[in-house]
């Protein structure tokens, strides 16, 4: 058999074409994605410096004296549900506190608690998901059935029961939220894990004699991390909304500490008067969740929609 082999690799013409091709590993963001990043960065900055840039303390009732207008003979002007003005740039709430200050303080609680819960949910979900994918049939079925049980419970109801039993403190909120959301992370991690565990490169590592720990660390995890990262964004949004929902019901962060969800609830009474106090925190929640979703869209587009398949 005589095959003319012209270049060292034997595949004429292909070597050149490939080296010209840029590695498509670098993730490029669209305009919308860049906007999202800016908004997220803004809020993250506020988590750190919010209390220092806020004009007032979150629990401070603004002094009536601040609102006395010269020429008008009213020594005791109303301080609640004020529209934006020179003193309170975003107006005041139902108790006459500065909305902007409460928003900036609230960023810390809302984003902090959500982020911590998401991270914890991921830690639990990925650990158990990989254990189920790699640990054999018995472990897989017992973990999966347990997970189905958690998934079958309505989250808000579960939250109400747990909080009424243990009280509404930040550690309870974080533990509850992360456990509830770990179950959906578990499902995705297990699906990715199972996919990767049956691939030939894992077989190749097993034939080499690699231990399970090495296989998980070096062969399985790298393939999961980027697609899971885009899911992380989504999950983070759900958790913000869940916590805001709890706060709205009065089960979340307790006053006088501010968070965005409870700010919406507290100020609902102002809506009939056209007060903007309940709208501002709602807009803040919307801006953060939309921004995260814009970034997530870019990341999942980078993965050719693989993520969408897994989640649905």
């Amino acid at each position, binding site marked *: *058999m*005589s*095959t*003319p*082999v012209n270049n*060292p*690799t*034997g*595949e004429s*013409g*292909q*070597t050149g*074409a*490939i080296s010209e*091709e840029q*590695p*498509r*590993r670098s993730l490029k963001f669209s305009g919308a994605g860049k906007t999202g990043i800016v908004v997220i960065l803004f809020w993250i900055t506020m988590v750190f410096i919010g209390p220092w840039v806020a004009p007032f303390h979150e629990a401070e009732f603004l002094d009536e004296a601040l609102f006395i207008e010269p020429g008008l003979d009213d020594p005791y002007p109303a301080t609640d549900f004020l529209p934006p003005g020179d003193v309170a740039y975003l107006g005041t709430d139902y108790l006459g506190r500065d909305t902007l200050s409460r928003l900036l303080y609230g960023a810390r609680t809302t984003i902090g608690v959500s982020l911590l819960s998401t991270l914890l949910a991921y830690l639990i979900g990925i650990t158990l998901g990989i254990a189920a994918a790699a640990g054999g049939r018995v472990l897989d079925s017992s973990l999966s059935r347990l997970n189905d049980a958690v998934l079958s419970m309505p989250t808000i109801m579960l939250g109400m029961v747990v909080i009424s039993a243990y009280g509404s403190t930040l550690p309870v909120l974080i533990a509850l939220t992360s456990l509830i959301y770990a179950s959906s992370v578990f499902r995705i991690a297990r699906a990715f894990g199972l996919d990767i565990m049956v*691939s*030939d*490169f894992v*077989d*190749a590592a*097993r*034939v*080499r*004699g*690699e231990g399970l720990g090495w296989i998980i660390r*070096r*062969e399985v995890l*790298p*393939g999961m991390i980027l697609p899971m990262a885009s899911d992380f964004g989504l999950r983070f949004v759900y958790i913000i909304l869940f916590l805001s929902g709890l706060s709205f019901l009065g089960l979340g962060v307790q006053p006088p500490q501010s968070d965005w969800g409870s700010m919406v609830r507290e100020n609902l009474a102002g809506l009939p008067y056209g007060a903007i106090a309940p709208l501002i925190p709602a807009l803040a929640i919307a801006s953060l969740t939309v921004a995260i979703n814009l970034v997530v869209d870019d990341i999942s587009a980078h993965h050719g929609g693989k993520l969408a398949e897994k989640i649905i």
Partner: protein
Amino acid sequence: MPALLEIDNLVIEAAGGGASPAPVINGVSLQLDAGEVLALIGESGSGKTTLALSTLGYAKPGLEFRAGEVRLNGDDILAMPADEKRRLRGQRVSYLAQSAAAAFNPALRIGAQVTEASVLHGQLSQTEADRRATDLYRALGLPDPDHLGRRYPHQVSGGQLQRLMAAMALCGKPDLLVLDEPTTALDVTTQIEVLKAFKDVIRQEGAAALYVTHDLSIVAQIADRIVVLYAGEVEEYGTVDDILNRPQHRYTRQLIGAVRPPPDSTLRPESLEETRQDVPALEVKDLTAGYGRKHASGHTVKVLRDVHVAVGQGRSLGVIGESGCGKSTLARVISGLLPAMQGDVLLKGQPLKPSLRQRERRQLQKIQFVFQMADNALNPHQRVDQLLGRPLEFYFGLSGEEKRQRITELLHMVELPAEFSERYPEELSGGQKQRVNLARALAASPEILLCDEVISALDTIIGASIIQLLKRLREQTDVSFVFISHDLSAIASFADDIAVLYAGLVVEQGPANRVLAPPYHPYTRLLIASVPELSQGWLERTLEMRETQASIDRAVEITDRGCPFYRRCPLAIAGTCNQEAPPLRNLGHGHSITCHRSEAEL
């Protein structure tokens, strides 16, 4: 009267290519008359599928038509508005894709899927379409044409499904049929029946066909004229006779050179079979293996039964059989991925523990597995130097400069430049990936290399270059090879010894030159007859042989009773072959056949 299909100076480029757009199709012109079969041939990446799809007015996402015309009966397809294009597809032009398994919906009956397009387009009523489908099943030589439409896709074999796809494509009486590598995924034995059915039905229907393939020997059977594509340009255009016998261009000659010669025992010199060592490098003894629960009585599927093979030091054993015969299972048992039910695997006379975890690292290092699909066998998140470096660290504790040097050596061994160590698998072509895959196995400095269908997923030319590489490695090193393939000509060109596996049973084995010469086991004869030859008329000749006639439309069955090949065997003795297990006949020189027939009869 214009030709049925005319392609005029067609240019297809990457969309938004910027300053230097790379044309995928660069100024191609061709013509196709009614009733004619035109083959488009070229290696992967030459643009043959892109060109074929242009006859449907379709360009894959990321590509766009830049210039030129595609005319069907004088109508310019590319200029058509979308809804007219939709009418064109499925009515006047229909497309037959490579994988029938992926084209059929497993939840719907075959009949409904075959007739769907023509009923939807309003060409035929459901009753007319059903009648037409039944006629087509008959023309395609499918079994039980009257009731076939009521079955589900999983109830027919792969070869039958491929023919059903032709029925689906032809149901609406299209003017032009586009076939994209329709037999590439099939076994050689199945390929014959599918080719014959296609050839007959195209002639009967008087349709024109565009046949896309990389396999010249198939083209020789079915096409009237050939277009050789290279890098998006027509390299050569002519009748089959001209191209095969008087190729003009270098690339065409290269293609013809890459066609593996039919297996021929005289090609091999009488080898050193008498000087065999006493202890083979690898021996598999009375091995039985399968899937399913181990202790459940009788419910296991035995994929291998009493297999006994051996590979001498520095030699290569070819294992051949159709899909489903247990070839890959054999490799998995040897490597320890699948523990055997019974029997032993001996490495230099030392028995190995059945499962991976019980084996020592030193033993694992000596047996290396090269997986079939390099795409899936290389972790896409690791660079080549990480892929090759890990076995070096793992088995030999190499690091730093020493490791780097060894990686360069390994890349050199598989004929890749050292710079490739910084690439990710997706930045490599199929053949290059397979070389890295091979280099990773070599990194362990193994004594046994298990090569599972390492060239099946590759083009003829690239596959041939990988075989060249393996041959060179065998000469340079003392490694013993177990080379698994369904392609007899690949095995014949590489293996010293051959074991023919059928339904988990070794039916014939011995030195290559003895296995490839009479007396044959009937199954070996069938395999040899099924390897396509690069000459016109081979299909008709081989179909006249009793082996092919007896085996057509029969799938591999695993039976516990009698000879598994009974139902496909032209020499079967009723009452014996289906009742009693065939005896092993030793023919001397290490050659043995498992059959009831005597040496003289075979």
